[in-house]
């Protein structure tokens, strides 16, 4: 039952993502790709939760690497996206879409 719920959640999230993204103007495609990529760094939560298994050297190494890689994705991703978007917003010119 819980698995079924999870599959429901998965399907709905796909549908939502579909709707959100289909309305983006081309100008924002690169920042969007970069921002979405940063969100996919959510796997960092998985990496952190897995750190509880680190009771052997190999898996400890694996754990550190997983956390480090995910952190690079998250920190770098959001920062680089912000850098790109800062250039747009400094114009203060708006155009609905």
């Amino acid at each position, binding site marked *: 039952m819980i*698995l079924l719920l999870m599959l429901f*959640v998965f399907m709905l*999230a*796909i549908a939502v*993502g*579909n709707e*959100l*993204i289909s309305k983006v*103007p*081309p*100008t*924002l*495609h*690169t*920042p*969007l*790709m*970069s921002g*979405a*990529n*940063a969100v*996919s*760094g*959510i*796997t*960092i*939560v*998985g*990496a*952190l*939760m*897995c750190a*509880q*298994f*680190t*009771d*052997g050297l190999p*898996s400890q190494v*694996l*754990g*550190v690497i997983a*956390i*480090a*890689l995910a*952190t*690079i*994705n998250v*920190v*770098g*991703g*959001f920062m*680089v996206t*912000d850098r*790109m*978007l800062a*250039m*747009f917003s400094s*114009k203060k*010119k*708006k155009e609905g879409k």
Partner: protein
Amino acid sequence: MDGFTPEGLLYLVATFLFILGIKRLSKVRTARSGNQLAAIGMLLAIVVTLVSPEGGVDLGWTTVAVGLILGGLVGGVLAKRVEMTGMPELVALFNGFGGLASTFVAVTEFWGRFGNVDIGTPVDAAGDVVLGGSVWAIAIVLSVLIGTVTFTGSLIAMGKLSGKISGNPVILPGRHLITAVLLIGGIVAGVYGTFYCEGNTAVMMVGLLALGAGLFGIISVLPIGGADMPVVVSLLNSYSGLAASMAGFVIGNSLLIVAGALVGAAGLILTMVMCKAMNRSLGNVLIGGFGGDAPAAGGGGADEYTGVKSAGPEEAAMILEAATSVIFIPGYGMAVAQAQHIVKELGEEMEKRGAEVRYAIHPVAGRMPGHMNVLLAESDVPYEQLWELERINGDFKTTDVTVIIGANDVVNPEAIENPQSPIAGMPILNAHESGTVLMIKRSLSAGYAGIKNPLFERDNTYMCFGDGKAFIVDVVNELKEA
């Protein structure tokens, strides 16, 4: 995990922030705040995970601290240092890291339960309650598979974008067979390992799966030409989301499932948009063998062109002096030459002279969608001067001069005039319809599609050979003296 707990509720808040963030990222005015909202959601998710009894108590704090600090520093420095032109490569690299992290999450989780670490010890993992054997095993296979393909594929894409690996399609003999064997072999090993093995054998089988998937990623991206890399990066971005989502099934965490699925859908839609702009199907792109850095067989060398007229900076300046309307078409060449600032200066000079100045942005100009917008924004070109293809294409007929800076395939009239052309049907900017075309380019070499561009030899076209930046500097100086 997914009981009614404080951390569960806070995860829900984080999920909401992600959705809101991506929603706001889709409007120019709210994009920056959207990115910040998503980042806050991520911070919330990380902090909650760190302090929650689920993860917090048993966490190896040294492990966590080392990983977070190391990753934060590397990510931060890379993001601060990168040039705007290097952005696509960096996104590809980040993406690959995300994919690999998902692989490691699945492997670590698997190792923790079935690996050589005290098999007898019952591991009290949260996911244990939620997911039973076979579904859990399938999720592990999928997240290792997708995560590793994302990783190696992204590295190859990065290499091709930065020119470290040849942008030409690299075709191995029998590659379809090889990729099929790798993929199927990897999956078989993974399924065998997760379903039927224990201890070292199981871990080894999952290792084989990762190896197969990794090689599959490399061999799949190698035959794809440099011109198609944006599509590949976009697709791999989608994969990395799916990998995170599958990792969510592995550890029984709905936050991972939702956020990963959102990104998976986002990347796929973006990929479709890009394929459509090139009038190619996704399957056609992935089969590869199309487009490279050098002219492909039958492509345009300089000797194929007849009646090409060229103009120096002086002539170009004279042509521009007489113009009352100008459209600039930037391409990847502008990014390479770092010419965006001087292009803007030229635009301003023209405006001072009373000319109407606009920039026409082809959806796939540059190496990523929106690449040109980012560069022009960097040099402070007003947003309302940037025009998308559909909105400006009818206006070329009434435009005096079109200045093309380092773009080629996106203005190739073959796409609409020659049904036999490989790019037939691709939407192009109708630069050839304008009064005069100034094409600033280093040589007559072909673009990424590797085909001849008859625009070069049109009567109304002047080829302006030289480095984009140096040439425009000269033109601006001429205009200022005049």
